[in-house]
């Protein structure tokens, strides 16, 4: 039920493609994935429709039958307890279920106030100044198709315009997420989420992690990656397809994307190395340094919190965090 969601798996395109014309109203692609055994349809917004509008745009796809449908924000990582969500939703028999998760700093988010017994949602509070609750919207929902009638085909915010009404009517329920959760929209949080995911992987499917001399903690390595001698990799590292790590490399808490190369004796901590990038010899990168696609970092440099846009060549150290365009 839970599919491959490696961070480095970004090429799902080896499936058969049915040709489709570009539909004015948004449906541009419709195919069946032989690997996954499910049908994938793409609904394309011509203009951004917010967090609710796109559901109205895809109405036809969602009302094929009268079964409830899931809605997921793509920049969220967790265990995705879909079965539990479905059971919970079917149990309360109302129109909508929101998954909530507990966080340490709720005022950074929108907070959900609900009955502990049963889960009926009373109200939402955006970025509360005083402590109201530490449960926030985890960005995953289940709805009955009937709720689509609440949404007009225009830019609409589901949190601000739809949910409060549904809550008022007693139609919205909250399910508490048990496992890990992270909003991975920012690089810093992406790395934190990656660590959580790897930890969960160790519990669910430890055989997928790479062990042995030179590997510390949770490390995920694509089978096509090449790792040199005297490297120490981990903890909390994911290595993508075709990545080359030369001799004597030390990597901690990083994501190295497909086709990247890290040359010998370099040291990386808390970094994201973009697709096909090249990191030189004796380079030190730390503090959420992010390299976009096809970035070249020359030998012996020091990058501290550098955000490097794609196709850049870096010839000077970046001792303090900044963006390189």
């Amino acid at each position: 039920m839970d599919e491959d969601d490696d961070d480095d798996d970004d090429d799902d395109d080896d499936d058969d493609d049915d040709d489709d014309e570009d539909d004015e109203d948004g449906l541009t692609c419709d195919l069946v994935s032989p690997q996954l055994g499910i049908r994938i349809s793409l609904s394309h917004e011509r203009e951004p429709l917010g967090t609710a509008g796109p559901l109205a745009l895809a109405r036809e796809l969602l009302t094929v039958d009268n079964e409830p449908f899931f809605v997921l924000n793509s920049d969220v990582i967790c265990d995705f307890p879909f079965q539990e969500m479905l059971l919970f939703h079917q149990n309360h028999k109302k129109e909508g279920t929101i998954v909530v998760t507990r966080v340490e700093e709720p005022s950074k988010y929108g907070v959900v106030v609900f009955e502990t017994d049963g889960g009926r949602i009373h109200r939402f509070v955006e970025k509360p100044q005083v402590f109201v609750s530490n449960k926030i919207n985890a960005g995953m929902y289940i709805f009955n198709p009937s709720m689509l009638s609440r949404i007009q085909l225009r830019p609409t915010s589901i949190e601000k315009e739809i949910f409060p009404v549904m809550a008022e009517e007693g139609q919205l329920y909250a399910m508490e997420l048990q496992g890990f959760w992270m909003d991975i929209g920012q690089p810093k949080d992406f790395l934190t989420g990656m660590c959580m995911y790897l930890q969960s992987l160790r519990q669910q499917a430890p055989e997928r992690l790479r062990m042995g001399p030179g590997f510390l903690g949770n490390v995920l390595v694509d089978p096509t990656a090449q790792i040199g001698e005297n490297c120490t990799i981990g903890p909390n590292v994911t290595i993508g397809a075709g990545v080359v790590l030369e001799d004597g490399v030390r990597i901690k808490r990083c994501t190295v994307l497909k086709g990247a190369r890290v040359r010998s004796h370099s040291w990386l901590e808390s970094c994201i190395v973009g697709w096909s990038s090249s990191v030189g010899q004796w380079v030190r990168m730390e503090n959420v340094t992010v390299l976009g696609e096809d970035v070249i970092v020359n030998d012996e440099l020091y990058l501290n919190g550098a955000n490097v846009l794609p196709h850049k060549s870096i010839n000077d150290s970046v001792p303090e965090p900044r963006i390189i365009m």
Partner: protein
Amino acid sequence: MLKAVILIGGPQKGTRFRPLSFEVPKPLFPVAGVPMLQHHIEACAKVPNMKEILLVGFYQPNEELTRFLSNAQQEFKISIRYLQEYAALGTGGGIYHFRDQIVSGSPEAFFVLNADVCSEFPLPEMLSFQKEHGEPNSFVILGTTANRKQSMNYGCIVENEETSEVMHYVEKPSTFVSDIINCGIYLFNPDIFQHIGAVFQKNQQDMLLEEPTNGWHRAEAIRLEQDIFTALAGQGKLYVYKTLSFWSQIKSAGSAIYASRLYLNQYHKTHPERLASNKEGGPKISGICAQRWSALSSPPQLGPNVSIGTGVTIGAGVRVRESIILHGATLQDHSCVLNCIVGWDSTIGKWARVEGTPSDPNPNDPYAKIDSETLFRDGKLTPSITILGCNVTIPSEVIILNSIVLPHKDLNRSFKNQIIL
């Protein structure tokens, strides 16, 4: 016959060389693999007819100095003696105080050299120049060209272009005077003592008229530059020999690395045996078995401009550039040392990065000299060469950037732009 006097100063001088000068007197600090003074002594010993080298300073006798002197005597087969001033007497006061020793044996001339300069030491050329210019007993200052802005940090010489006489001399003027600067290397003869003596007499009389202040001012404290050269300029006695050869002051640790580079470049001609043969960029290596490296899958990469002392251990995949690694240090696998002086017996952990910022002169300006930056600017530590004092331990995987670490420190994390006590 000829003599040479080298002014080596004392502990109160050379404070910009701390913390390295805590362990060893600054004149003995290794530059390009040998003590700073040795370059002077080698140059003097090569001059025909050189009979004696005198070191004048106010260091207390210590083991290193004594050992250095006896080794140098044996190696260069020339008399080398240390004359200790009872107090800091200035660049002129010291030689005046020991004038009897200097003139004993009736040398026709003697060189005076400052210890903290790095130079090609064109001493024979200065001798020839002296014979061709001015009267028989004229004095010669070695000069070189600086750029306009930097010249004001040095002694400035106004030269009569036809006769090469020094017409005017000002030490560190506040406005531009001349781009010819004083290299701190002179050729005198015993007549100089008349001139210094005159200043001494005058000082004594002045002191009788004034109340003694705090003992810092003495009649015998005389500065060659301000007190003698300024007065001698334009009198037909003082001449300047300009050189195009390399020259630099060695005031700070950063300038020691720069000076090392200048000497290392010279080694191709003068001391090729001091250069490591199997590495490009000409680093000097001693005390390490080179064969051990070729057996490693990741040999270290050293250079350019690297000096490595005896008993240094270097691991696999180590990168060192523009640095001085002092005796007994250990650089563990994959570490990276750039623009740095690593103190005696220090240890740098695996994958650690120890890096400084060079203050080299602008390579596009042939007359640019190394800057003597102040330690702080706008309340922040000026980025400069990273210095590890003796017996410092840097743990694995950290970065030490633009920092100064005092001796016997055991660090436990990264540091940037700090002085770590």
